[in-house]
């Protein structure tokens, strides 16, 4: 007889049978060779997420001069000090335009997230990294991905399947919470499980809709067929979500659902954004620990940042263009205030994921989070060194605490590396002169 020994059973046995003599080395059998944990006999999932802040940084205050592990933290990056062990910093990675215009606050995001740039403003006509990775690893959770905007605006999202397949963001912490932990949530650690017969019927509702596909697509041109297929894909995703609800969810030890947040105000005033971002980060951490999704996109502020301070005539974006550079300081002090609040919130986000214990490490260890902005120096919309960071160890596959400087290298090398680290079988990625097959080997464990 094969002994079915999982962590839960052992722990239960220890409590129930007083088997206190079980020695620590025995538990090593639950660790795989990469040092990541297995819980309940299953490898812990590795999650991918993005974290976006708008309007870049001041290179002289942000970019470390030293590379490798002993890099120093300048005035804008010092906020990550408490979590620097979890973070990699990338500088000098460039968006290449191949003769196309630099579309302010747009081309940089597109190059990093979609691997190419368009000739004009508009939706991104390519799957973004989160979608590419989600298609490879994110199909077995309740939500294919979760998009959030701390600014409260559902349009503040940079996740696209195609030009017509835009993934809008949840703008309110309460709505985000309700979507995940509302009546349809099944506690993976609940003692009993009884499939809800209504879920079966709800699934049949969707099966009936899926069956309309062929008739509906008749007479349509190619573009309409494609976008209507996106509709049917969305139907299919909800069907799969319900299918999962009919099965007992695997236990998730780190899953502890917190009470729902208050229905507070949302908006772009920076204090309000930081407060809502904090609540959303906590909800997201719970959602990840409870295996509700493996893919997420958090927007702290939008690309051409609309953040504002009470009593200030200009929003952050406007400040980057119109605030005079302080001659003594050498930068725009008010605009820099927003960069610093962004870095402070990024550190808080990282800390929130790191504070959830999971397996023998933390939730963050089993994540690869890509934090980034749309420009380098926003005042001139520079995109020759788009600021990018990572947080987490991607389940042991990624080294951390490193600054990689790669002046003039295509920014697509980052997305390419992250896809490989997340297990996407990709050999090359990027368009035109940004096509690459060269991973950033410095961070590969």
């Amino acid at each position: 007889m094969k002994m079915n020994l999982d962590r839960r059973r052992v722990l239960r046995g220890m409590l129930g049978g007083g088997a206190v003599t079980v020695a620590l080395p025995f538990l090593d059998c639950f660790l795989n060779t990469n040092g990541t944990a297995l819980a309940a006999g299953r490898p812990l999932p590795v999650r991918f997420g993005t974290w976006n802040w708008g309007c870049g940084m001041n290179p002289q205050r942000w970019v470390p001069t030293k590379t490798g592990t002993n890099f120093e933290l300048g005035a804008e990056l010092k906020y990550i000090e408490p979590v620097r062990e979890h973070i990699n910093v990338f500088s000098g990675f460039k968006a290449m335009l191949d003769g196309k215009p630099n579309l302010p606050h747009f081309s940089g995001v597109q190059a990093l997230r979609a691997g190419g740039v368009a000739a004009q403003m508009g939706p991104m006509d390519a799957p973004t990294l989160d979608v590419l990775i989600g298609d490879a690893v994110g199909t077995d959770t309740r939500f294919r991905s979760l998009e959030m905007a701390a600014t409260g605006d559902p349009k503040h999202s940079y996740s696209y399947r195609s030009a017509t397949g835009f993934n809008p963001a949840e703008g309110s912490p309460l709505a985000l919470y309700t979507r995940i932990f509302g009546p349809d949530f099944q506690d993976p650690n609940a003692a009993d499980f009884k499939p809800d017969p209504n879920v079966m019927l709800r699934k049949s509702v969707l099966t009936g809709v899926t069956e309309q596909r062929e008739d509906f697509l008749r007479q349509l041109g190619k573009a309409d067929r494609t976008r209507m297929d996106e509709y049917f894909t969305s139907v299919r995703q909800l069907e799969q979500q319900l299918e999962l609800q009919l099965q007992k969810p695997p236990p998730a030890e780190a899953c502890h659902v917190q009470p729902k947040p208050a229905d507070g105000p949302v908006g772009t005033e920076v204090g309000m954004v930081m407060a809502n971002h904090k609540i959303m980060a906590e909800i997201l951490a719970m959602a990840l620990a409870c295996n509700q999704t493996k893919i997420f996109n958090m927007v702290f502020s939008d690309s051409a940042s609309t953040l504002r301070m009470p009593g200030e005539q200009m929003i952050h974006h406007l400040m980057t263009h119109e605030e005079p550079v302080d001659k003594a300081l050498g930068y725009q002090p008010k605009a820099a205030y927003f960069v610093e609040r962004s870095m402070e919130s990024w550190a808080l986000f990282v800390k929130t994921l790191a504070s959830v214990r999971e397996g023998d490490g933390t939730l963050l260890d089993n994540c690869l989070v890509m934090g980034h902005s749309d420009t380098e120096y926003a005042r001139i919309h520079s995109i020759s060194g788009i600021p990018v960071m990572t947080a987490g160890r991607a389940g042991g596959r990624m080294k951390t605490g490193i600054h990689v400087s790669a002046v003039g290298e295509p920014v697509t090398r980052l997305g390419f590396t992250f896809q490989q680290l997340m297990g996407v079988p990709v050999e090359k990625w990027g368009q035109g002169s940004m096509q690459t097959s060269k991973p950033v080997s410095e961070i590969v464990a």
Partner: protein
Amino acid sequence: MMRVRSCLAGAAGLVLAVTLSGCGPSEPATSGSPPVVQRLTEAQYRQSIADIFAPDIKVGGRFEPGTRKGGLLAVGGSVVAVSASGFEQYDVMGRTIANQVVDAKHREALAPCKPADPKKPDAACARQTLAKYGRLLFRRPVGEKELASPLALANRAAEADGDFYAGLAFGLAQFLDSPNFIFRKDVAEADPSDSSKQRLSAYSKATRLSFFLWNTTPDNELIRAAEAGELDSRAGIAKQVDRMLASPRLETGVRAFFTDFLGFDKFDSLAKDSLIYPVFTTKVSRDAEEQTLRTLVDQLLVQKADYRDVFTSRKTFLTRNLGIVYKVPVGLESGWEAHEFPADDPHVGLLTELSFTELHAHPGRSSSTLRGKAVREILLCQKVPDPPANVNFTVVQDTSNPQFKTARERLTAHRTQATCAGCHKIMDPIGLALENFDGAGQYRSQENGAAIDPSGELDGAKFKDAAELGQALHDNPSAAACLANSVYRYGAGREFDPGEKDWQKYLLDQFARNGYRLPDLLKFIATSDAFYAVRPAGDVKEAGL
């Protein structure tokens, strides 16, 4: 090629026809456009549910944001899909609506029959109910094949739950989750009068007409007319259009057009800094939106005024909240009061209404550039190019710089940079005329202690202030053309087809000929052949989808 329609079709109507339609050159033939598949907007979804079921049915849920194309959400509706999270929301809404339709409060009025035993399935009553609502939700009769799935589901669920109505809710939810409801899809059919051509099916015509004029789903009468084949003829369409133009629902439709055209969806996220503009509240901005819509409806539908007069009219409606911002005493404690600004008042026409000045400004500051851009792009349908990436604004944009106290002084300095001059020249002079209105739309004569100079020029027409800018806009042929083109594109849910060039010119001529009156324009478009002309998409793949 122009066809000349006979004016002698009805001898008795000759004089009338000449005066009304001018009896000039008749409608030029067009190529038609490929079928369009448009996602219902939030307003269209909500209004459809209220009209099909009952006004007290709550929709709940959240809708995905729309996409603007060529300035219109209606045109963008033809290029958007539905994301996974968006569909989740449709599913939640569908179930919420279906459960209310069958609840104890509504079932009596809404179900056309009663089950033999409410605790058991009743296939006949389920079929009757589902066929009734399928026809209304899909805006056409549902075939046996389409009915089979929801019907089987309703019966199975009724059996499982021991409740006929609970079962019915599952069947209805399937209609509500269907792309046949959430999208309106043009269906083309062979044209019996010319087998080489296609025509839009009568149901698709009914749908297009209804959303165009009423912003909601076709009513029973319109579907009946489609069923009876009446919409296959010009006369049949004209009869329905007259009925629809006379209906109070026309106001809903006209409001929906201007909400889209003027970009009023931005009011949903409009915020102002409360320290700089304590006068701004959500209530004031909602009233500002309503002020403009109410004024437009009164001028264009009730008074049947020339569209161009919306830029020069001094008549409007105010609430007490708005009175505070406009500095006008409003007697009514609540509700709306008609108001006419005196001849020496700076408030004249649409551009000086709060909805325009506060929507096109920063949260803490006015913006001549944003306002100039809005006049160009929204009201004149002209595209302002994207700004270049590497621009230095800082030297001249410091509001504390004693050299450049007003926006005009700062922007003039900025415009001397060659890379910026081209675009700012077409935006700023317009926006500067509105500098007398701050970022929250309040009148001011000075900025930082210096007098504001609102004079300027619009495409060669010189003006000395906002009132004269309104007149310049009134006289600018692009303003009227922009409206006519937008109304057509809004109704058709697409851009003009290259094969519609002659028709587009004809449309503008007719609009001018009819004195730029909106009801005539709506009627003219709704009864035209071009509005319904369809040709197959070039890349249709029939088999092996």
